[in-house]
């Protein structure tokens, strides 16, 4: 910022002010090298580098990271991040329970993404910002349903921000999954279904038709599911151990993380058919690239219409896109009249291009 001449008076900003300006201090939330930051409250939202105080939207690894001094999150997310991050300093709050930090009001609201996932509402002197974290507008019967919040500025993900993404109702998809399981069983084959350990796996478990057969789990899925059983009603599962015989698994279904695909752990299930549950399965190329026999289009993110409707319902005039097809999505929002921009973050959404190494427990 250069000195400006206004009616004969030279205004010179002090170095301190200059610094603040470069950080765009007029904004309630800014993006810095560590995360989404509220300078006024000195709090970070889903930071990707260690900070003093962090508000965490949900338990996925790109949002809930290791190393912060204090974690504030929804009650239902606490068992998850404790399980994943170990002994950390946590404080839980409920939905819609405002807390004040340095005069700024923060509250958490359901995001519908996975169990325990929140949006963060931030208000200061009547101005409201919402950070959605990851979210989906469809009620999946597992996560507390997404709640639309009115705001001035919405910081939204757009993982599937392309008109090519259009989800079917989940009842249809689970109908396909159960029919697939049944048909594999008739062919004398085991069904192996891949979905993320946290969120997708429990959503799958909830809707598998247990009249067809037994549900077996990979260790990573079993552990996370155990953590969530106190909060969620789910059918019984059997952990696959070295002692589990190949014969007893035959014809049943195995739920495993995507990283188990192609690993020696799978040998016991021969003959088997593989299925993958992901929004990316909408693309034929993605299906064959994953070398999965069957792709089920099932996502915990909004599809194109879901994103647009959520933004519209928020009444926000300014939209900041964080991860996904940000260039395309924000350009379209600008055409619709929004003040839309992009900020780079370390969030990944529903990973597709990068392989997701998830440790396979030896059990």
């Amino acid at each position, binding site marked *: 910022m250069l000195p400006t001449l206004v009616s004969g008076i030279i205004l010179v900003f002090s170095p301190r002010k200059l610094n603040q300006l470069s950080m765009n201090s007029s904004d309630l939330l800014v993006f810095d090298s560590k995360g989404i930051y509220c300078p006024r409250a000195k709090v970070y939202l889903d930071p990707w580098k260690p900070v003093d105080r962090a508000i965490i939207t949900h338990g996925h690894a790109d949002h809930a990271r290791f190393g912060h001094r204090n974690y504030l999150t929804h009650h239902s997310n606490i068992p998850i991040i404790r399980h994943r991050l170990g002994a950390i300093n946590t404080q839980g709050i409920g939905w819609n329970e405002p807390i004040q930090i340095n005069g700024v009001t923060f509250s958490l609201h359901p995001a519908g993404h996975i169990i325990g996932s929140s949006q963060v509402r931030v208000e200061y002197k009547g101005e409201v910002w919402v950070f959605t974290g990851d979210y989906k507008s469809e009620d999946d019967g597992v996560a507390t349903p997404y709640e639309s919040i009115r705001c001035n500025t919405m910081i939204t993900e757009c993982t599937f921000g*392309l*008109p*090519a*993404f*259009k989800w*079917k109702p989940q009842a249809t998809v689970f109908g396909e999954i159960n029919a697939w399981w049944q048909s594999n069983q008739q062919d004398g084959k085991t069904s192996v279904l891949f979905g993320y350990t946290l969120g997708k796996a429990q959503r799958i478990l909830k809707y598998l038709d247990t009249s067809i057969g037994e549900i077996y789990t990979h260790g990573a899925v079993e552990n996370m599911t155990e953590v969530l059983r106190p909060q969620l009603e789910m059918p019984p599962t059997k952990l696959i151990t070295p002692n589990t015989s190949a014969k007893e698994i035959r014809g049943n279904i195995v739920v495993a993380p995507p990283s188990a695909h192609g690993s020696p752990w799978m040998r016991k299930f021969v003959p088997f058919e593989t299925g993958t549950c992901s929004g990316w399965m*909408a*693309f*034929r*190329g*993605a*299906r*064959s*690239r994953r070398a999965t*026999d*069957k792709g089920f289009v099932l996502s915990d993110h909004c599809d194109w219409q879901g994103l647009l409707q959520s933004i519209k319902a928020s009444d926000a005039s300014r939209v900041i896109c964080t991860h996904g*097809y940000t260039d*395309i999505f924000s350009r*379209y929002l600008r*055409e619709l009249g929004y003040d839309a921009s992009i900020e780079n973050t370390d969030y990944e959404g529903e990973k*597709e*291009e*990068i*392989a997701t190494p998830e440790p396979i427990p030896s059990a």
Partner: protein
Amino acid sequence: MKSFAELIEKLDATNKTNQKVAALAGYFAQASELDKLWTIAILSHRRPPRPVNTTLLRTYAAELAEIPLWLFEESYHIVGDLAESIALVVPNDEHTSDKSLSKILQELVQLKSKTDPEKKEYVQDMWMQLDYYSRFVFTKLLTGSFRIGISQKLMTKALSQVTSVPDDELAYRLMGNWSPGDTTFDELVFGRNEQAYVSKPYPFYLAYALENEVHELGDVSDWAVEHKWDGIRGQVIVRKKEIFIWSRGEELVTEKYPEIAQLANVLPEGTVLDGEILAFVENQVGLFNDLQTRIGRKNVSKAVLAKVPVIFKAYDLLEFAGKDIRNLSYQDRRELLEALVNDTSHPVLQLSEQKNFTSWEEVVAERELAREKRSEGLMLKKKSAPYQVGRKKGDWWKWKIDPLTIDAVLTYAMRGHGRRTNLFTDYTFGLWQRNEKGENELVTFAKAYSGLTDKEFAQVDNIIKRTTLERFGPVRSVEPTLVFELAFEGIAFSNRHKSGVAVRFPRILRWRKDKKIGDANTLDDLKALIPT
């Protein structure tokens, strides 16, 4: 249409040959005669001509989806397949159309001559009446390209299971100049249409690349050795005083090669020759690149005819005096061929020289002469073998010379297609050249999209995404950091290329992680490889 779409979905969902054949056989067993006929036509690349151009299809789709055209284009770049993009954005998932495949294809044939508003109404209407997968298949039929990993061989196998007509016999019947409009399923498969046989070529016998050491083939005297010519494989048929020239891609190319068509008057009735269409400039076999000017044109001008004349280098005789002699031994066919070519004595019909060797060492030495003779290497054919159908191992081997290679720098990358959508797998390469200002710059000379493992592609993709300079739709220019060793089969000067050089079949041999971009070759190094 629904059952055909389900068939395509099954074929697309598996890469196991048995499952594909089973899916096809199941479909053939229940489909109507007319649907079967059209299915065979589509799977053997006999689609109706494209009735609506793809630019129009894009606007129709964007309009139905209520999105701006640029947004449709962006989606298409990411999805990587036009029909799939359209199927995805059109907002409907109810299948209400009960039209059969054959009905739809007949409508597409008629659609071509309709007005644009009529086309638009028909296409949008169909899209709204089909569920996602049927819409995808329907749009594939509209756009033409139908790569679903079904070879003609698999289709023939499935059809053979259902009809009990042997594979090889079917392969023959399905060849040549037919379209669903002028035959029936019965006529085509059970062969009741004698007229169609006049132009019908035999399935080409295709060689595999030599796998083991050449001396492991046994006694050298059992093998006929000739050069592997670098032109267009073709079949010349003379029946009922007419001549037909077929390319190996089953394209009728008689009009493109009037020199060869003259043979109609000199070859005896009932002759089918297998051989190579070759450029023949100044009494010398030309390069494949010379033929380029002949390949694309249907009507050849006098100037082009004079500049790049062609010959037919014959290497086999499949029909003699109206009799199918494919079951005779190679040696016996060869004797008949030699006599025929000598009797014909026409400058356009030449014999591919067969050489006799007393040791494999001599064969090895002959292969070394390939570049000099302007061939791609050698063909080794078992003297006692019949002429087989399709690609079969054992009796014919191709033994190519090692490719030419050069180290080049990756300059542009494009998203791949199909399985490789979302990965940058199609690359453009440059070589160094000093410009007028005396600076070294990279000049584009080739594109290549094969030769790396999936793992390497993923790594390169990652680097491309991190080093992108500019984006042009699906293409990105990247900061030059990567060096690859490229291989190619042929090389020639060319006015059509910015670099002034055309290379044939460029592909990636390996990623030279050990080299910096300054270590890559120069354009002059490449030019030095051009034979004089």
